[in-house]
């Protein structure tokens, strides 16, 4: 389960950034508050660093009204493509898993 979570987390990041740029803390808080993702906030920063190295996201420093400048993350074209590919795959994957799980449920009902 943790592997599945880890594998999909990066696409959750890309999906959040698809809506618009966000700074680290904002992004991390949103993800950690998402139900069921169960992620330590600190572990998202290495993930962001990896996405930046893979050229799926870019960063820029921007002034904030309160406190020091913030580092904003935004999606690159490659990131947008990776997200689109994943969305397709994910839909198929989810439907297949759902179908199998429902099949199992029905089997159990029949046993009763």
């Amino acid at each position: 389960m943790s592997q599945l979570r880890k594998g999909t987390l990066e696409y959750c990041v890309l999906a959040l950034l698809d809506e618009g740029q966000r700074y680290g803390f904002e992004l991390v808080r949103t993800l950690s508050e998402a139900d069921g993702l169960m992620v330590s906030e600190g572990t998202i920063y290495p993930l962001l660093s990896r996405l930046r190295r893979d050229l799926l996201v870019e960063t820029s420093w921007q002034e904030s009204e309160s406190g020091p400048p913030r580092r904003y993350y935004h999606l690159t074209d490659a990131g947008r493509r990776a997200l689109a590919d994943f969305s397709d795959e994910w839909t198929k994957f989810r439907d297949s898993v759902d179908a199998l799980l429902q099949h199992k449920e029905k089997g159990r009902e029949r046993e009763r």
Partner: protein
Amino acid sequence: MNVNADPLVEDYLRHLEAVSSVLPGYRRAELLTEIRAHLDEALRQVPAGDEAAVRSVLERLGSPEEIVAAAADPMPDGQFVPFPVPAPAPETNGLAIASLLFGIFWLGGIGSLAALILGYRARREIRRSAGGQRGSSLATIGIVLGWIGIAALVIAAVAAFFLLAATTTTGPSITSTVAPVPTG
């Protein structure tokens, strides 16, 4: 609240700095910058002196070990290997050993010839193995001994030739100078 004002936060950052020293320099610096910025943002919403709230912020962040492990972890489609895989121990090339042995046991020059042939082949094989095989110095010693053996053979042959020539040309004079054994 200032990040550096809280002893709990200070401890946490010191710990993270120590644990993250395994990461490449730039990535470590990037991680530390982001975590500091995160704590800065999170603690701004925490009233000064509220230790429970500070603990909760640190807990949500996760342990330094956990964060550094995530930074060193391979991607799901993983190209990155965090630790170098040990290469198998190189083996000594068999031809190199044979070359050395033939070099030592001259065998009237045949051993030397074999030492040379095997030695050069061994060196070529070792070079091609690119670190997979050892024994290059053994092969070299075999080759040197081989050449010494060949040289010794040539010198011996030349010496024998001259000796033989000397004996045949001076032979009669030697015999003539020897006093004939009285036959009685």
